[in-house]
């Protein structure tokens, strides 16, 4: 099957600065793919290359088999972009913004009007259709950005931090909407700061750090690979220091020596329990927390930082 997005050995400079270095990955049709990384890691730059907003110096980028440079008209028709920053036409109303954008994509105006009506209703913007974008609230602008990207019914929807600065209710509604859209077959490529968002939505994630790909796995695999269950033991009596035998597996001693925290891997639980039993330390309560994508992400980025 031809990948929806295929990036091979992509390298991009901003003058002397290497913003992306030899990045490669594929996104399959129908996938919900999360692209994560700290600020300035190269997420938006990668998106800009895919959508025609940035040039690049080396590598190949294909959208459903078409090259984004030589076959740019085909690739751009397949993508809907929801950018991070508002970039609306200041001379148009909300409704015109949608209708004109559809027009640029070759949608006849009668059809564009119909679709604009549907999307304005769907995103609760119908009463605001005659207003210029400056008169919309932050959440309304964000919704208009998404509606604009959907006007030509793209096969791939690329969202760059779609929920940044968005209130909780809207965030949940957007998640629900994106899940539905993905269920209907649209490939979704999402970057986000909210790791929880990626964990809830994305079946697979890629992590980019300082312009290089540092992980590319199904979300669940990445979590498991990077982090075990987090175990917390509440002790009946405080402990002054972590016993030597288990210092390697653990360990953080918290709450004035009443809580022992560690990560479950290589049979650490058995080891710790045995040691505590031998020393006669009794346990009041045990909490086990599943690791999250955030734990995995933090660990990955920290290990990258250490490596320099």
């Amino acid at each position, binding site marked *: 099957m031809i990948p929806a997005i295929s990036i091979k050995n992509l390298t991009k400079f901003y003058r002397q600065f290497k913003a992306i270095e030899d990045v490669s990955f594929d996104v399959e049709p129908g996938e919900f793919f999360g692209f994560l990384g700290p600020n300035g890691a190269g997420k938006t730059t990668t998106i800009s290359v895919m959508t025609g907003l940035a040039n690049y110096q080396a590598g190949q980028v294909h959208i459903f088999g078409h090259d984004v440079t030589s076959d740019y008209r085909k690739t751009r028709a397949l*993508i809907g972009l929801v950018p991070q920053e508002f970039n609306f036409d200041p001379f148009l109303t909300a409704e015109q913004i949608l209708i004109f954008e559809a027009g640029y994509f070759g949608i006849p105006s009668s059809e564009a009007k119909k679709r604009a009506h549907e999307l304005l209703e769907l995103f609760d913007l119908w009463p605001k259709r005659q207003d210029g974008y400056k008169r919309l609230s932050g959440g309304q602008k964000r919704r208009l950005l998404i509606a604009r990207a959907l006007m030509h019914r793209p096969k791939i929807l690329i969202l760059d931090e779609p929920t940044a600065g968005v209130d909780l209710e809207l965030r949940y509604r957007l998640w629900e909407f994106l899940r539905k859209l993905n269920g209907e077959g649209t490939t979704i490529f999402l970057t986000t700061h909210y790791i929880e968002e990626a964990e809830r939505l994305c079946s697979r994630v890629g992590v980019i750090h300082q312009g290089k790909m540092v992980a590319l796995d199904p979300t669940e695999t990445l979590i498991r690979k990077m982090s075990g269950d987090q175990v917390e033991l509440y002790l009946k009596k405080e402990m002054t220091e972590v016993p030597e035998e288990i210092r390697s597996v653990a360990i953080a001693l918290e709450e004035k020596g009443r809580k022992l925290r560690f990560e479950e891997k290589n049979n650490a639980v058995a080891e710790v329990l045995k040691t505590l039993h031998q020393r006669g330390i009794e346990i009041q309560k045990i909490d086990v927390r599943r690791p999250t994508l955030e734990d995995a992400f933090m660990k990955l980025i920290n290990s990258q930082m250490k490596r320099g």
Partner: protein
Amino acid sequence: MRALIGFRTLVWREIVRFLSVFTQTIFPPVVSSFLYIFIFGFSLGQKIQKIHDVPYLWFLIPGLIMMYIIEGSYANSSSSLFISRWANNIEELLVTPLSYFEMVLAILIGGLARTIVIVAGVYLVSLLFVRFPPAHPWVVFYFLIFVSLTFSSLGMIVALFAEEFEHLSIATTFVITPMVFFGGVFHSIAMVPEALKWLTLFNPMFYMVDGMRYGMLGFSDVSISQSMLVIFVLFVILFSLTVYLFHIGFKLRK
């Protein structure tokens, strides 16, 4: 035909843009043309001797129309593109499947539409003072279209190089306006001292004004085919350069 929808939409967007700010884009040239025609042509002009056997007022009108074609098309495309870069809504366009050729041509035709509205306004104002049928209407249209497209291209090029709004008016103040004035809007090359005449021949604006005068009045200082050729060559060069800059994404793509 579906392929042309995008192109037509962008032309229409350009028209909506200049109409939505018509007090800045349409009124000023029409009002100032009234002042020029009334003061220079009608009042002062009566004291000036005939040029090529026509009253000065007749002589002035084609020059003024050419001046507004040049200024109007330059102003339209330069501000439209610069504002799009500045507000970043140029990205709305760059992610669409329109070809670079279509993007550039559509913006130029938007500028042409504004120029046609302005020229119609200036011509109507001139009818208050003097009425004469154009000698060669097709020549008038030729110069209207190609001069407008040429200066719209120049406006787009300057808008790409410009970093601030002021840079757009620098070109108007220091290059376009002086060249238009020296190009003979208000005077004939016959009035220029012999030693400076050859300099006028290097000024492309001279051929535009002279060509428009031929179209409206039927006489010119140099041959009409020469003027037509100069403006056509200039158009091809500037238009190709604009498309090329879009193609390489000069100051458009990161």
